[in-house]
């Protein structure tokens, strides 16, 4: 049995870590919400600006989780953290942007490379030097069962922890929920009921 040792939520308006509200979107700012969060974290990683919304969301939320739970950053070997993510509509946001680029002007290679949902896993792996297991799935809605069953499979097959995410970005609407599962730690038992409860209404 494993434990959900930290989690966070992101919508278009607010960001919560372990259930606590930590930031709200400043509607006066000219910066995008994700950019506001990035600046607030005081990370310096210019590649952030090249990422699409899906990758920026995954990146920011992972950084927030690392702050909330330093074990995510320090306690594991470079291939022990499995990345298990899913959403409803794949990389649709970037797909539409790329399509627009070739229909209206000329195809943008920088947009094309984000037209796959698993790219966010690549961005997390690059920044954190994580060489472990990866999977990105597309499901009709958030399915606690899927995460519970597959993360446990990964944890019994060589991974020691799993960073899991539901990154639903479509029509520029963000519904994101990231959570960290460890074999030992303080937190709710990792089962479907608890996970669904923490996920809330995503």
């Amino acid at each position, binding site marked *: 049995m494993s434990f959900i040792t930290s989690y966070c939520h992101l919508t278009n308006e607010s960001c919560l870590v372990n259930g606590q509200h930590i930031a709200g979107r400043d509607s006066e700012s000219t910066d995008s919400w994700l950019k506001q969060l990035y600046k607030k974290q005081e990370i310096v990683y210019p590649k952030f600006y090249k990422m699409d919304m899906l990758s920026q969301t995954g990146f920011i939320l992972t950084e927030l989780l690392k702050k909330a739970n330093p074990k995510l950053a320090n306690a594991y070997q470079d291939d022990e953290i499995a990345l298990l993510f899913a959403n409803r*509509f794949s990389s649709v946001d970037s797909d539409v942007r790329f399509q627009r680029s070739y229909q209206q002007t000329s*195809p943008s290679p920088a947009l094309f*490379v984000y037209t796959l949902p*698993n790219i966010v896993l690549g961005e997390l792996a690059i920044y954190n030097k994580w060489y472990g297991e990866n*999977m990105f*799935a*597309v499901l009709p809605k958030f399915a606690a069962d*899927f995460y519970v069953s597959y993360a446990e499979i990964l944890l*019994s097959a060589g991974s020691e922890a799993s960073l899991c995410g539901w990154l639903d970005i479509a029509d520029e609407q963000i519904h994101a929920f990231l959570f960290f599962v460890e074999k030992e730690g303080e937190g709710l038992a990792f089962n479907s009921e608890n996970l669904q409860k923490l996920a809330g209404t995503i």
Partner: protein
Amino acid sequence: MIYIGAEEIISPLGDRAEQNFQAMLDNQSGISLVAEAGLNKLPVNLSKIADLDFQNPFESLLEQILISLLKKIDADIIRSDRTILLISSTKGAIENDISDQFGKSVRFLTDRFLLVNQPVVISNACISGVVAINAGANFVRAGLYDHAIVIGCDLISEFVLTGFQSLFAVSEKPCQPFDSERNGITLGEACSAVLVSNSRSVFRDMPLGLLKGTSANDANHISGPSRTGEGLFRTVRKTMQVNGISDQDIDFISAHGTATVYNDEMESIAFDRLNLTHVPLNSLKGYFGHTLGAAGVIETAVSMQMIRNNVLLKSLGFKQKGTSVALNIIEENIPAEVKTILKTASGFGGGNASLIIQKL
């Protein structure tokens, strides 16, 4: 023991696995020059399936492959609550609906075949197929299901072709994996399926054994391979270690071999680090092109046919060593006892995955 079998293939070379394999034994390729297909309406080499259903080609292929696969097994299992369907694809039915690339097809299959469990779409770039087969095996091994039907399917679309052309990644010639003159991919479309099961009796013909598989990220670049082949090295090493397979045990490697300068070079470096440069190896992309989400499944299916037919298929498109480390590229079809095969895949997002199949 986890079994794998009932492999089926729909490609430009035919709509059954055996038909495809026969064509490949005759050195046929699905690649041809298609007029006006590319940017600025120039001709492009593509591996295109003729006579695709023009209204819903994606779901029509999925339906067709399932019908073929079901003929090779106890068809009742499709309606069982102990069966899960996994679909490996990168862009699904994007040309039908960019805002819902998979949903409609998944719902269609669920209704058409009375599926009990929600199918899972795996969208992990070019490693999706191998990841999906491994996931199917993992689900079955964990006792969550008894059977996993794994389908890999991707279509050529203006979207994808335009994208790869914007990366200057498409060759003007049919692709030449591992060759010194290689200069890019040839896009292909295909649909392939396999059954993974804990029960031997559901297969009408002899299944093969599917060992544990793994994946690993390069942690290097989102679209370029690691120069040291780190992710590929790690996944193959893990897969070999967890199964107790040594570099002397592998009879054949079905490599990823996309025919870009960097990918094939990266693979040669990784295989060198793994002491696998002596193992007979091919890329099947000279026959099918790069079929993206279908690649891992269709290439595994062909590798299974190689085991069944005791033949090592030549690496179509290869003439001359083109990587800094020499690999044992199969240059002509060779009759050989093929018992243990390694399938690898690498893809955008830094993903790498591998699996091993054995004759029982």
